[in-house]
């Protein structure tokens, strides 16, 4: 057998064809796998790598958020300064970077900050938008049902109701989106489930 015969014989062999629906579903399969498995480092990395990776991820997230703020700031400024928090794309990007670790994304007078859990144990659920003012300062955040947070000097727990309402419970008050109104000490709360955001 000479080179030319070998070449012909090799090239005559086709890769077995697959059904068209396989090619349709394969990219989704990859995407689902990426969402399901925690991103980045394998478990057998040296010990110093996870903190480094974690620090890098946080720095990257801050950059991303900074970029997002810069990008959307102009448009959002004139309408609602907290609209960025309700932007599905931004939320999606942040949640993808830290799967099941984001307890809240808070925006206040100091800017935007992430509140992350130590372990990836924050259950995926519909995000909840909360805006709290205590007369002196206001904070807005996006969080998930069951999270206990400190906002505007108040320690509060955010809960979602089955009917789509939101309950905010503090040490001396309980507020429900079904019966909104001003609380003691000039505390004002607005809260809503972000059902329209598909994460």
């Amino acid at each position, binding site marked *: 057998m000479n080179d030319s015969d070998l070449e012909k014989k090799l*090239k*005559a062999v086709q890769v*077995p064809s697959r059904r068209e629906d396989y090619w349709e579903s394969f990219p989704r399969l*990859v995407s689902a796998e990426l*969402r399901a*498995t925690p991103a980045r480092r394998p478990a057998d990395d040296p010990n110093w790598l996870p903190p480094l990776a974690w620090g890098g991820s946080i720095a990257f997230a801050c950059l991303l958020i900074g970029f997002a703020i810069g990008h959307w700031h102009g448009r959002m400024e004139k309408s609602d300064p907290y609209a960025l928090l309700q932007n599905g794309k931004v939320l999606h990007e942040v949640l993808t970077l830290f799967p099941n670790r984001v307890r809240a994304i808070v925006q206040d007078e100091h800017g935007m900050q992430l509140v992350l859990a130590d372990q990836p144990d924050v259950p995926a659920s519909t995000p909840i938008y909360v805006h709290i003012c205590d007369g002196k300062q206001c904070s807005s955040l996006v969080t998930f049902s069951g999270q206990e947070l400190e906002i505007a000097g108040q320690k509060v727990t955010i809960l979602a109701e089955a009917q789509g309402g939101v309950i905010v419970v503090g040490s001396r008050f309980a507020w429900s989106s079904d019966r909104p109104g001003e609380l003691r000490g000039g505390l004002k709360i607005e809260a809503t489930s972000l059902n329209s955001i598909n994460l």
Partner: protein
Amino acid sequence: MVKESRMGDTDEEKVLVLQSRKGDPATFESLVRTHQRMIHSLTFRMTGSLADAEDLAQEAFIRAYRQLDSYQGTAKFSSWLYRIAVNACLNWQQRENRRERMHANWAESNDALRPESEPLAGEDAPGRQVQAALMKLPAKQRAAIVLTVYDGHNHAAAAKILGCPETTVSWRVFAARRKLKRLLSAKGGQNE
């Protein structure tokens, strides 16, 4: 076949890479869709099994997504992706070799017959014969043949993808051809 997906980086593709880098698997889906046939073709030629080819293609895309930060943009995205897939195939071969050695030791110690491996996929008998011969090559020689014969890379380009000198690729191609000729000339092609 393969050539349809070996494209130069379009502006659209560059944008998709940048967006995927920000951590958006949904955007990455478009890149997977563009290159999936090329990668499946490579992984099948390297494994001879549709199931393993699918697993390896998936592994290659997942690795690529997680290493997107390291993609400099100086080479074509398709070449960069191809290199990741080749490495995934070579690692797979190492795992397979280890598994087969363990299996052989176990079978020997238990005086048992080694079970038949998964039949090689192929649409016809000559196809299976050629694929079986390819599978008898050392993995690096097989990769050299897949890159140069099936995917049309010259030796210099194949060397870049494989991360070795061009002369090494030339030697691997030469050795692989010699062995393939012997295997495919023998009666039945699988008698060695």
